[in-house]
Every structure is written in C-alpha cells, then in structure tokens.
C-alpha cells in the first residue's frame, strides 16, 4: 500500500514539475534544477542524520565524488548520461561504505571531526593529481543535448531541469519507501536507543553503515546531477561551505522528513537570491552591500534555530495542529 501511495505521489509531483518547468524562464529553470539536486543531497543526508542520528560534515565531498565520476565518464570516456549518473551513485555509495565503517565506531563530535576532515581533505586530491582531476580548474562536461523529438527550440535549461527533477523524483520514491520499510524502522530504533536496539538483536554497526551507504548514494547522484547542470566538476564547488550548508539545509527545513529536505533545498537556493534583492534595495557602500546577504543568512540561521528549532516543516506542522487542520500526529518525525 505504501508503495502504491508513494508511486501516486511521485507521479503527481512529476506532473506538477512538468507544468512548472514549462512555465518558467530559462534562468528560473536553472534554479529549479538546483533545487532538485540539492533536494537529492538533503534527502539523503536527512536519512542519515534525522532517521539514523549520525552527523556528517562531509557530504559536500561525497557530492564531489559523484560529480567527478560523471565528469570523467561523460567528458573523457564519452558515456551516455544515464549510465554515468548510475555509476556516480554506485561509486559514491562505495566511498560512503568506507566512510560508514569509520563512522560506525564514532559518536557525536568525534564523527563530526572525522567527516569535517574528510570534507576538507578530499578536494586536495584534485590538486594532487591534476592530470586525472584537472587541478583547480576541474573537468568540463559537454552540455546535455535535449532529444531531437522535443524540437530544436527546446531550451537547454529546461532539459537540465528535467534531468535534475527526474533524479529528485527517483530519490524521493526510493527514500519514502525506505522510510516506511523495515530498514527505516530499524534505523530509527538505532537512533533512539542504541543499547535497546542491540538488545533486540539488531546489528547496530551494520545498520549505521547501511544508512551511510544510502545517504552517500544520494550525495553521489546529487553531485553527478550538479556536474551535468553546471557542466563542470571543480574543487571550488565542493568546499567545506557546501558540506556545512547541506547540514544547515536539513535542520532549517526540518530534520528527518523528506518534505523538510524540500524546504531546505528551496531555502538554500532562494535565500541568497532574496537577500541579494534586499541588499540591492538599499544604496550602500560596496563592502556592506557585498556582505549583507551573508550577514542576513547568518542571522536567519541563528534566528530559526532559536525561534523554531524543529525547522520549517516542524513549524508548519505545529501551525497546522493549532488551526485544527490535521489530527495531531503521533509520530511527529515520520511525516514524508
């Protein structure tokens, strides 16, 4: 039943996205594509952190693994897009399993420290092996060509948005099923009480590794899609700031829920745009003007965490309950 319902929701979302992408300007289609690949990454991370209770400051680096895989396979070896994205997902999942083995032994701040070092260390490989990874300039990917059946005037940006949205829908379908499956329940059990989970006969370390693999696979798909959309895989795109903003996105959106991941993706893409608009509204000196968006971003982060610690999704849910729109939910972190 859950599978059928999730399929129906996915199809409805697909239809909605199709209509939206037809209505949007090319520039806004690119934003839609960004929201879509950020959603893939955030959905994966929120499974790991929200559902399984493991923190990761290294998902930006995992996205880099996916991006470089696609760049090498498509740009150098001439693979088609779909197999390259699948390969990016698999390769990143493998890297994630290694990370997961390390992570399963670590808790809280120690895990944060190890994944932070991963986020900072991995992009160093691009500098170390410039022949394979193109150094600071990175690798260029030829732009994806829309199928000729769509007509010659079909904008590239809309095609890119479609690619990213398909990736997002696949991730949504897979993860919303996983959430309600045995694996999802077991992941929650480990998060809530490791000792109790162990006593119930669960292999805690193995489940934590599985969670890491799942979320790394999403990061790989997201990174690969990002590389396709931006037509570039370069170390500058996968800094520590990216890893940190992913973590920020899932907490701002609402931890542990896929809808929350969507809110987070929208915030990550649109907040800089909005704060730029606000900054442009005032005539300010150059230094102030260029830093105002960043300052607003920081204030929003601190403000939301203090005022609405459950994120946007949590705040909406509370609002919904207060207005009596929905019966109060018994599993408040389970909403899809």
């Amino acid at each position, binding site marked *: 039943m859950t599978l059928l319902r999730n399929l129906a929701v996915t199809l409805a979302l697909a239809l909605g996205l199709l209509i939206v992408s037809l209505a949007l300007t090319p520039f806004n289609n690119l934003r839609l594509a960004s929201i879509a690949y950020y959603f893939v990454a955030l959905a994966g991370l929120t499974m790991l952190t929200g559902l399984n209770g493991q923190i990761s400051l290294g998902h930006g680096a995992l996205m880099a693994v996916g991006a470089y895989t696609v760049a090498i396979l498509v740009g150098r070896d001439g693979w088609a897009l779909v197999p390259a994205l699948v390969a990016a997902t698999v390769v990143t999942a493998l890297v994630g399993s290694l990370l997961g083995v390390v992570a399963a032994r670590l808790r809280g*701040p*120690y895990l944060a*420290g190890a994944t932070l070092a*991963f986020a900072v260390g991995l992009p160093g490989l691009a500098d*170390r092996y410039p022949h394979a990874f193109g150094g600071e300039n990175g690798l260029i990917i030829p732009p994806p060509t829309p199928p000729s059946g769509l007509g010659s005037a079909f904008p590239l940006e809309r095609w890119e948005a479609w690619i990213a949205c398909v990736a997002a829908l696949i991730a949504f379908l897979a993860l919303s099923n996983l959430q309600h499956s045995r694996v999802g329940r077991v992941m929650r059990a480990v998060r809530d009480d490791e*000792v109790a989970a162990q006593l119930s006969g669960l292999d805690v370390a193995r489940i934590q590794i599985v969670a890491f693999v799942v979320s790394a696979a999403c990061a790989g798909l997201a990174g690969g899609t990002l590389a396709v959309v931006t037509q570039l895989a370069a170390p500058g795109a996968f800094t520590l700031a990216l890893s940190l903003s992913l973590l*920020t996105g899932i907490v701002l959106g609402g931890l542990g829920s896929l809808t929350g991941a969507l809110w987070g993706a929208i915030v990550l893409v649109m907040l800089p745009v909005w704060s730029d608009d606000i900054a442009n509204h005032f005539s300010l000196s150059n230094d102030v003007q260029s830093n105002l968006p960043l*300052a607003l971003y920081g204030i929003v982060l601190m403000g939301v965490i203090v005022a609405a610690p459950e994120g946007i999704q949590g705040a909406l849910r509370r609002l919904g309950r207060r207005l009596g729109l929905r019966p109060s939910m018994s599993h408040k972190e389970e909403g899809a």
Partner: protein
Amino acid sequence: MSRFIDLTLNGISNGMIYAAVALSLVLIWRGTRIINFAQGGMLMITTFIASSVIGSTGSYWVGFVVALLSGLVLGAAVERILVRGLEGRPPLNAVIATLGLLIFLQAVAGMIWGGTPRSFPPAFSIRGYEVSGRHVLFGPFDTFTVLAVLGMAGALALLFRGTGLGLQMRAAAFDPLSARLQGVRVTRMYTVGWALAALSGSLAGLLVAPAVFVGPNTFDSILVFAFTAAVLGGLDSPVGAVIGGLVLGLSLSYVSGYAGSSLVTLAALAILVAVLMVRPEGLFAVTRTRRI
C-alpha cells in the same frame, strides 16, 4: 638532518597555535557540550580589532591587550545572547547556530574591514636564530608563540585546579543540577567558560595572523586543524588538546616538507582516522565503556 630540525621546529610553533585554538574548543565542550564552529570567526574579529588598534595607536602591545580583552567580552556576549537560548535543545541545533554565527561574523568583518586580507605585525622578529652560520626555521617570535600558549595553558590549569572559581566551573560542567543545589551559579560559570575560551582563541589569532594575514576567511583552516587536534586529544581533555595540537603540527610539518603541501589536509584526515580507529574518543579520553 638540518631540514628535519627545521621542520620539527616549525611544527612545534604551528602546533602551539593549533593547541591554543583546540584548548578554546575543549573549554567550551567541557562546559556546555557545544562544538564552537564560530571560534575561527571570533578570533578573526579580535585580531581585526587588534589590527585597527595597532594601526591607530602605533603600539603592538596595546593592540595585543585590547584583542585579549575583547576576546573575553565577545565570548561572554556570545554565551549570553546565543548559547543561552540553545540550552536543552538537540546538539545539532547548537552546531547550526554556531555556523550561523560564523557566517554572520565573517560578513560583519567584511563590512567593516573589507574582504582583502591585510598584513599583521609579529611581536618579535620572525627571522630565525642563527645556529652555526645557518638560520633555522625558528626565531624569537616562535619562542614567544610557544611560551605564550604554554603560559596560558598553565594559567588555565592553575585556575581550574587551584581556585574556587575553577572548582565551581568544574562542578557546573560535571553535574549542573547538583552544583546549582550547592549554590554554584551555573549559568554564570558557563559565561566565564566561554569568555576564557574566547580569550585562548584570540591569543591564537594574534600569534598566527603574521603568517596567514587578517581577512574574513583567513582563519578557516586554523579552525579545521584545531578541531582535528582537539578530537585527536580527546575533547574532554585540555592536556589532550595541547598534545593533539603538537602532534598534528609536527605531522603536518613533516608531510608538507617531505611530501608536498597539497597533501596536508589529506594527511590530517589520515592521522585523525588512524587515531580514532584505535581510540574512538581521542588519545586522552577518560575511557568510559560504551558497550555496543
């Protein structure tokens, strides 16, 4: 051989800077169970203040003292304004809040002082001592760095071990409820802890600024390495922070010297993973069995 000695000396003085920042992270972790990702931003602000004060008064030491004092004030203010509101919330929220603070501080610094990094004077000559006709990679300023950090670590140890205030702070960190019942003003102890931690951080900023310059983002890597050092040593152990800083400083100096600077961050990752695989809570963790 002389290269090895140079790299060792250089590693010691770098390690001491990591140790100072690691110490500030450990102090905050022990007191309030928060990893302060904004520490790099806080020490950036105090170093900028020092830079402005030195520029307008012409005296290095006035700037030095003002930076340390503003560190105290900034640490206390952050605890009062931001951290207090996070009490009892999930640990991840504190992570996000300090990240938000970091971004905010970097933006504010960019607004006030601009984005171009500026040079910062050292307290003493950075020219290496001359040993048998050769300048080694260690000069008066490095001596000052090592002594200043060791001195501060010693002073903090004295404070915690030998004074009533230190005892109250340890009690507040160890068991807030019982401490409160015994009349310890727990929240005030948290404020003092954050202030002292920020003091330690601002000292590190003054010591590292001549090498990395002062700009909104120039201290980012210091925070990453300091966090690595603190995790290496065990987040609950101030001694571990200092030794973790030294170990990391030396290792990275050797890697950078013998294998190339592009490998430094990867080496930090390798060292951290290797240590954590053997001791998941750092080198100096009080072993608490967590049977899973």
